[in-house]
């Protein structure tokens, strides 16, 4: 050390102040470089995030509206095939599709051949009869009258109106025929085409027709699964964390357990799915595709996160609190339940919510227990078959229909909103209950 400084002195003719200044300059430069690298890392990360949000919003926002077509429908009892009957049962099984087709043929009398009639009827969704069924069930008086309905358009029409597919006639490869495009233009000129909020997306289950497909079934499935996950993993996780942190003796057994818990947090989630298949389905005989089993599997995934976060939160409570309570004669259990746990709660809750957010996004483990499935009915209990939100994203992304592209992005937006809400909850909880020493 002294040798080197002598070396500098002997070979350097600059004054000490000059040397200090040049060192300072180098140190400042290093700091600026580090700042620049850090800043550019942030910029890159933000660019990727922005790009992701931009493409998803760009693709998905249009799915929140749906094209409707205005049609005057004559609700004659003959066409409905119900004769003089007006019972609820007769109304439920009446031929609403036939009535809609008839109304479309009347709207476009030029369509005469069978093929043309098929094309005319193809402009309206095969699920448009739901609107009629609802209207007649609410008011059977309408039978025999002519009413104006806004009916759900077919997904090919929807795509053309939204500008995703070409509306130029005479082109090869159009999903709509030239005639259909002509009829559509005619309808539009009469003000018979509109885009409305896509309420179907938020109220119905899955469907193979993009215009009828909804997220509600998978939202309910996700909520059921997460409730089960919370009910299982929170008490188990907190109890484990408290025992390991406050009560367990420090020996090689507890060390081993700790290492294992940390390892468990890094196990690929599909492994938990296989475990769920073997234990919950094959051994315990629980139903396939049920949110109950999904929730239990997700609870296993959440558990290590909650334990690790819980232990960190317990550790952060100052020992003085424990000592003061013990000094006043509180038992070990009283110290924990009355003093340490309430103070550690914000940290534990934050960890729990982050673990749950992780569980919300999982699909791989659910594949093994049959939750990656086409399920139309909305689940009424955690025992009914059900999908979850990320599974719906996966299934729609794989569907050939063009209209599912925007709906996939819409489903991702809904999933992201869920995640953002949960993370916001974590932040608010922390802010509200956090204490500083």
């Amino acid at each position, binding site marked *: 050390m002294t040798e080197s400084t002598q070396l500098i002195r002997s070979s350097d003719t600059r004054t000490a102040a000059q040397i200090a200044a040049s060192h300072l300059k180098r140190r400042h430069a290093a700091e600026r470089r580090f700042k620049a690298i850090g800043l550019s890392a942030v910029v890159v990360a933000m660019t990727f995030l922005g790009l992701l949000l931009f493409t998803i919003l760009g693709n998905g926002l249009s799915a929140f509206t749906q094209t409707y077509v205005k049609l005057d429908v004559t609700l004659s009892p003959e066409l409905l095939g119900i004769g003089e009957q007006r019972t609820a049962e007769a109304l439920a099984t009446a031929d609403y599709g036939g009535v809609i087709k008839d109304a479309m043929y009347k709207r476009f009398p030029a369509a005469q051949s069978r093929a043309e009639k098929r094309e005319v009827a193809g402009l309206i969704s095969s699920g448009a009869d739901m609107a009629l069924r609802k209207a007649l069930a609410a008011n059977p008086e309408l039978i025999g009258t002519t009413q104006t309905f806004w009916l759900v358009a077919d997904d090919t029409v929807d795509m053309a109106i939204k500008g995703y597919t070409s509306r130029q006639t005479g082109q090869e490869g159009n999903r709509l025929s030239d005639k259909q495009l002509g009829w559509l233009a005619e309808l539009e000129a009469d003000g018979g085409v509109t885009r409305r909020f896509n309420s179907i997306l938020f109220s119905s289950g899955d469907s193979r027709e993009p215009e009828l497909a909804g997220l509600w079934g998978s939202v309910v499935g996700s909520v059921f699964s997460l409730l089960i996950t919370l009910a*299982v993993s929170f008490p188990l996780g907190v109890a484990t964390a408290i025992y390991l942190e406050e009560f367990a003796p420090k020996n090689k057994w507890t060390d081993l357990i700790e290492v294992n818990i940390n390892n468990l947090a890094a196990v690929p989630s599909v492994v938990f799915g296989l475990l769920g298949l073997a234990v919950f389905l094959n051994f315990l005989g629980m139903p396939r595709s049920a949110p109950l089993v999904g929730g239990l599997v997700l609870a296993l995934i959440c558990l290590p996160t909650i334990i690790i976060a819980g232990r960190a939160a317990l550790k952060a409570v100052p020992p003085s609190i424990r000592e003061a309570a013990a000094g006043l004669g509180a038992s070990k259990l009283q110290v924990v339940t009355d003093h340490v746990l309430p103070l550690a709660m914000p940290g534990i809750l934050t960890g729990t919510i982050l673990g749950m957010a992780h569980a919300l996004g999982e699909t791989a483990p659910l594949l093994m227990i049959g939750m990656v499935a086409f399920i139309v009915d909305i689940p009424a209990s955690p025992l009914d078959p059900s999908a979850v939100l990320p599974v719906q994203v996966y299934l729609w992304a794989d569907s050939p229909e063009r209209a599912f592209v925007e709906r996939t992005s819409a489903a991702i937006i809904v999933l992201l909103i869920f995640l953002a809400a949960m993370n916001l909850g974590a932040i608010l909880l922390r802010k509200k209950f956090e204490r500083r020493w």
Partner: protein
Amino acid sequence: MIRKTMAVAAVAIAAVAVTGTAQARDQIRVVGSSTVYPFTTAVAEQFGKGGKFKTPVVESTGTGGGMKLFCSGVGPDFPDLTNASRRIKSSEVEFCAKNGVADIVEMKIGYDGIALANSKKAKRVHFTRNHLFLALAKDVPQGGKLVPNPYTMWNQIDPSLPAAKIEVLGPPPTSGTRDSFNEMVMEGGCKSNADMKALNLDDKAHAKACMTIREDGGYVEAGENDNLIVQKLDANPAAVGVFGYSYLEQNADKIQGSFIDGIEPTFDTIASGKYPVSRAMFVYAKKAHVGQIPGIKEFLAEYTSEKAWGKTGYLSDKGLVPMVDAERKEWATKINGLENLKM
């Protein structure tokens, strides 16, 4: 407060677990091929809309995985039907029989073509299966022996092909589409190759040489998602993609099907069997479950009705290529009579 919720939760879970084990099923369950999934789900949805029965649950597990689940036993814990993008194998029939699944009803539902396509921005291509074999095999016959595939440009194989880099985007080996592609295109092309015949390989070596796809970048595994392949083709006009016919039909404004052995992939050429790369698709039903699980017979009747699998039925809108009239009729009587599978 926390102790109370914990206790309530524990009791609730215990109760649910106990009832869960003792539950009978009133809903049809289908597993199997992801290729048949779009068709079976469409039928399931229509069937559920009828209102008499619950909508069947359809899982997409792949043909092989579906067979395994289907053949594992009889009872409400096992699926009632399975989708398959190929015929059931005799080994699978044996496995079924071993687990008590003796009577199986076979249902051929129609055909699916495997299309090769490129972006509309490029020229349409006319392939023969021999071209595709030479372009995609790992080793090709040259000068009386197998050598690592030397071709990098299409026109090195045949001057009639475009002067573009060989770049084929297709499904990974886990996909049923890849199995069919190997079987029909690679093996088909291999058999028609005169140099290959001259090599006089034994069966095993022949099959290996035919079915092994190159790994030097000529064939790009683009994942199971066919939509992704369509998007990549749109962005890269020089590339050729491999996927199911229904994706070609849905995206006909962006991509065009290539001719194979002079035949274009269209609805009619696949239905008539002229298009060389098409396969039959099947659904298998467990006879022991008919009458136990409500609605299986009715579900089969819905599947085989003209409004579903007919020429203008809703399945054809989803991309299924129906069988010809006589074949449909024959199968419909067989299926609705619950005739046993004959290998």
